[in-house]
């Protein structure tokens, strides 16, 4: 399987996707490093105004080698965000509320775990055209959802998480995952058992590992520029501070990459047990690189939020429709053979219903970010 197809967990990118990183080899080992470090000033406006100087960052390390007639792959992802964003994360209007130290944190995006992935994968041919795969991780990503946003070429310049993150790719950091798959060169079918619990609000520890939820995903790369996937999962109920009922989660994604232009479409939905209808989310994001120095990107979203998502139970309708349109631009500052830096800015115009005007100051609350990004200078460059 092409190395460039490696997304997050076992999710596939288009073979033509370009993501910043390095790869090389030592003996029989193939090594890869990729990641991104933003230093951003985040300013959210309106009644719930807030700001922060912080850093969104992550690094992923991978080592693979032939073994037992197949190939084995070890992967680790780490982030310093618990320190650089604090355990409260960064301000982001209308992001889903999360439990925090006995209360509820609203309008903020949580930081990544200090260790977001520790996994081992094994792939072995079964016949001439078919292979089987096993992925196991004390912390990793089940076969549920699209390639996580931070690993998508369409979001490579964007430091902010989508508003639909908690419905689409939230499980990219899950404490306990086992995935079995069967694949050909173009199609993969996978099934996972995983931990349905949210990571707790202490982002520097290991949460208890368990397997109480399940999912399945069908992925297809019909051509080098395309990757499509569809998934279904059942997430077990849990108690404690992060109480939620059991829910079904399903969706589909389409990723397209051609040289300097990458686009992602995601439909994701949660169907809580006993609910008569799903809570839908839609995302369309795209990044266009203009020559060597400039990149523009955008994201348009629709999310169906519950009052609980906004910590406004009892004060607004049980469900609300939220929209958001983000546009960003990054200009290259300096580039060496290994590292590229860029200066960027992004703005988000949120669209909320009338009953949220009181809480956000208008029906179009705005969020802004200015940032410097440091990343590998080329696409999984061989070093």
């Amino acid at each position, binding site marked *: 399987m092409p190395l460039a197809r490696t997304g997050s967990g076992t999710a596939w990118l288009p073979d033509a996707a370009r993501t910043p990183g390095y790869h090389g080899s030592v003996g029989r080992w193939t090594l890869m490093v990729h990641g991104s470090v933003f230093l951003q000033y985040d300013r959210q406006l309106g009644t719930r105004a807030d700001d922060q100087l912080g850093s969104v960052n992550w690094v992923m390390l991978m080592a693979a080698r032939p073994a037992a007639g197949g190939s084995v792959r070890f992967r680790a992802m780490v982030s310093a965000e618990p320190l650089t964003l604090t355990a409260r994360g960064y301000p982001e209007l209308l992001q889903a509320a999360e439990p925090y130290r006995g209360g*509820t944190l609203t309008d903020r995006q949580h930081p990544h775990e200090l260790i977001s992935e520790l996994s081992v994968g094994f792939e072995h041919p079964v016949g001439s055209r078919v292979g089987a795969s096993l992925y196991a991780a004390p912390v990793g990503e089940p076969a549920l959802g699209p390639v996580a946003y931070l690993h998508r070429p369409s979001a490579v310049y964007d430091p902010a998480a989508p508003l639909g993150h908690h419905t689409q790719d939230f499980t990219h950091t899950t404490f306990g995952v086992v995935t079995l798959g069967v694949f050909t060169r173009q199609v993969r079918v996978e099934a996972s058992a995983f931990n349905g619990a949210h990571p707790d609000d202490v982002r520097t520890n290991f949460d208890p590992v368990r397997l109480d939820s399940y999912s399945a995903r069908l992925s297809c790369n019909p051509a080098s520029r395309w990757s499509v996937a569809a998934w279904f999962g059942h997430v077990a109920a849990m108690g404690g501070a992060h109480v939620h009922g059991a829910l079904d989660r399903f969706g589909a994604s389409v990723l397209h990459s051609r040289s300097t232009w990458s686009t992602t479409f995601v439909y994701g939905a949660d169907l809580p047990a006993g609910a008569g209808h799903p809570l839908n989310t839609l995302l369309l994001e795209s990044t266009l690189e203009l020559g060597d120095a400039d990149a523009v990107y955008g994201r348009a979203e629709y999310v169906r939020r519950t009052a609980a998502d906004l910590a406004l139970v009892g*004060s607004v309708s049980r469900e609300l429709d939220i929209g958001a349109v983000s546009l960003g631009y990054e200009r290259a500052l300096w580039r060496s053979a290994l590292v590229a830096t860029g200066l960027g800015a992004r703005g988000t115009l949120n669209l909320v219903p009338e009953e949220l005007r009181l809480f956000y100051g208008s029906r179009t609350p705005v969020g802004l970010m200015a940032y410097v990004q440091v990343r590998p200078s080329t696409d999984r460059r061989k070093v």
Partner: protein
Amino acid sequence: MRTRPPLRALGVVLLAACGGSPPTGGGSPADPQDVASVRLFNSGLGELTFHIPLFPGDTLPVEVRMYAANGSQIMSVTGGEELAFTFSPPTLASSTPVNGESLVRDITTSAPSGTPGTLEVALHFPADQSTKTFGPFDVLVH
């Protein structure tokens, strides 16, 4: 953890300078119209806003915390407030006031295990004779 007054004042100033939302009510009481939302808490169980678990024979003290539109907690309101709970169905549970705690009521239920329902919270403000209601909050007898 207690915060020394000068440090607390500095913190409030820095928060305000950064556009943050310092808690109101540390000084003068808020106006009744500033109360935009409420959340429900229990000292042992934590936040109950999303789900209120009742157990037959047990008493559950529920504290109502008031919040301004910007999400900051309101510690007191000019003229005080009067709290009332209404359950649906009415046979789901009942509540009684707690001496000296105007924002806490004790809830008890005799409904059978598995009974679902809702709670509506009403805050009456004598200062301007206004009443605000919040809910429904989901209740389940376990």
